[in-house]
């Protein structure tokens, strides 16, 4: 999977087939069949513990860090089975970037944060300073952070506000040219203004990236996604264009959840 754009073989960025997952003896996902379209924002909603974060974390195989996790079924990213034996984990992670609930910039300078992944995946000779400058500027401009930080690129990433930190965490994924961005409640640690800014950014990134976003915030799912998946107790209940799901949910459980009858 060296040149992703050339090897795309389907319209779906992510496809799962009977994906089940166990933490020890606890089954967290039951036969999840999903097709997530390329280049749009898909939100995952559902009450706490319904498996939406677990599902998200399977897509870049970060779940495996826990030794007691067992997975069955298939997950295909851009038409390639990511659990196939010859798959290189590092290449999966390069294609599938992840943003966490709490912004987690590294305790190094803003510039080095952006260049971190770039440096890791850079095969050739060390890029020149001009190249690096360009990479940093591009990434920070894409996440609408450049103007705020361009005069303090040497400052620590951790010295930024939470909103800026979260944007930085998105920015550092971009230089390695991922195709899928996974976001696990990216705004839940932010204040309303920060939430709005980050949502706006995510909206701008669609098209270029396939974005899957887990959220507890129903309004956010409705405003900021094009398709919506509702999960309950480890199963997918409904997968519809967002507007349809919120206006005319097909399943009673979806309707109950959206109207706040349980949460």
């Amino acid at each position, binding site marked *: 999977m060296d040149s992703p754009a050339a090897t795309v073989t389907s319209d779906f960025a992510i496809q799962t087939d009977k994906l089940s997952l166990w933490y020890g003896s606890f089954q967290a996902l039951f036969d999840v069949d999903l097709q997530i379209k390329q280049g749009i924002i898909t939100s995952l909603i559902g009450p706490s513990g319904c498996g939406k974060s677990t599902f998200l974390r399977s897509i*870049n195989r*970060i779940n495996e860090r826990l*030794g007691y996790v067992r997975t069955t079924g298939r997950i295909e990213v851009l038409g390639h089975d990511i659990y196939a034996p010859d798959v290189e984990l*590092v290449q*999966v*992670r390069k294609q599938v*970037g992840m943003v966490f609930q709490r912004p987690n*910039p*590294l305790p190094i300078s803003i510039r080095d944060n952006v260049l971190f992944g770039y440096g890791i*995946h850079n095969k050739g000779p060390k890029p020149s300073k001009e190249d690096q400058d360009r990479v940093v500027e591009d990434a920070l401009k894409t996440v609408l952070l450049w103007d705020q930080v361009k005069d303090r690129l040497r400052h620590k990433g951790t010295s930024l506000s939470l909103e800026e930190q979260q944007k930085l965490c998105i920015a550092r994924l971009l230089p390695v040219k991922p195709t899928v961005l996974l976001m696990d409640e990216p705004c839940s640690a932010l204040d309303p203004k920060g939430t709005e800014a980050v949502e706006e950014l995510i909206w701008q990134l669609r098209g270029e990236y396939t974005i899957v976003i887990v959220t507890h915030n129903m309004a956010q799912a409705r405003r900021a996604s094009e398709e919506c998946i509702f999960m309950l107790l480890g199963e997918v209940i409904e997968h519809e264009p967002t507007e349809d799901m919120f206006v005319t949910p097909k399943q009673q459980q979806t309707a109950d959840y959206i109207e706040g009858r349980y949460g």
Partner: protein
Amino acid sequence: MFESTSLNERNRKKQSLVKIFFLMMTVLLILPVMIILGVLIYKGGPVLSFEFLFEMPTKNGAAGGILPALVGTVWLVTVALIASVPLGVAAALYLSEYAPDNWFTRAINLAIINLAGVPSIVHALFGVGAFVLFFEFGTSILAASLTLAVMTLPVVIVATRESLQAVPQSFREACWNMGATRWQTIRRVVLPNSVSGILTGVILEVSRTAGETAPIMFTGAAAILPFLPESVYDQTMAMSLHLFVVSTQVPNMPEGIPYGVALVLIGMVLTMNAVSIGFRTWLRGRKKW
């Protein structure tokens, strides 16, 4: 409505009594240190001179200087550090960053704790058996330093492991999610953020290594040896053993000399600590290496 009652009064008295009690306990803790330092400076201070530090001992240490012991201790500590720090840090890295949580890892952890609890005289005998006799290093700096290294290894491992585990998990996750391998994560994020904690462990080790007597008595340190060691295969004098010798083994010892030796030993340890702390502060300031 808000006047104090007799109950408030009683509680207040109790409160101040408790505070005074804890304060006294704390003072009691500092007291021995102050007394030790005071007596050493008072009695050993007059002995100190350029000659005392930089001349060979004569009359079994009753006259002359302590240069070979000073140099010997520096040798012992340095060689012990060279042996134990890389080994200890590597072991801690494995245990903290790579090892799965299974019976084998738990057994290793248990072994480390037990190793830390072994009395130093037992380490000394192990050193004789292993390094002096089996590996045929003879009684030498090498054998003594390796014995010291084995003894202090648990300190390095535990201190390193703790400072590694103090690095937030979110830093590691951030790296892994960008496709960094474990080693890249360790090298670029985990180590730079834990190096000051690791150095604290090393500082502790330095102090202990410089002061230990039992492990080196049989493995490489000699009582009186009025010349400087030239390689790790030589025997050497050492400050700790020299202190023991001049305090108990030599008749007609002038009273000031043992105090002088003790003062220099403490001074050495404090100096080494100060240098390491300075280095640590400097590294912390850079935070990038």
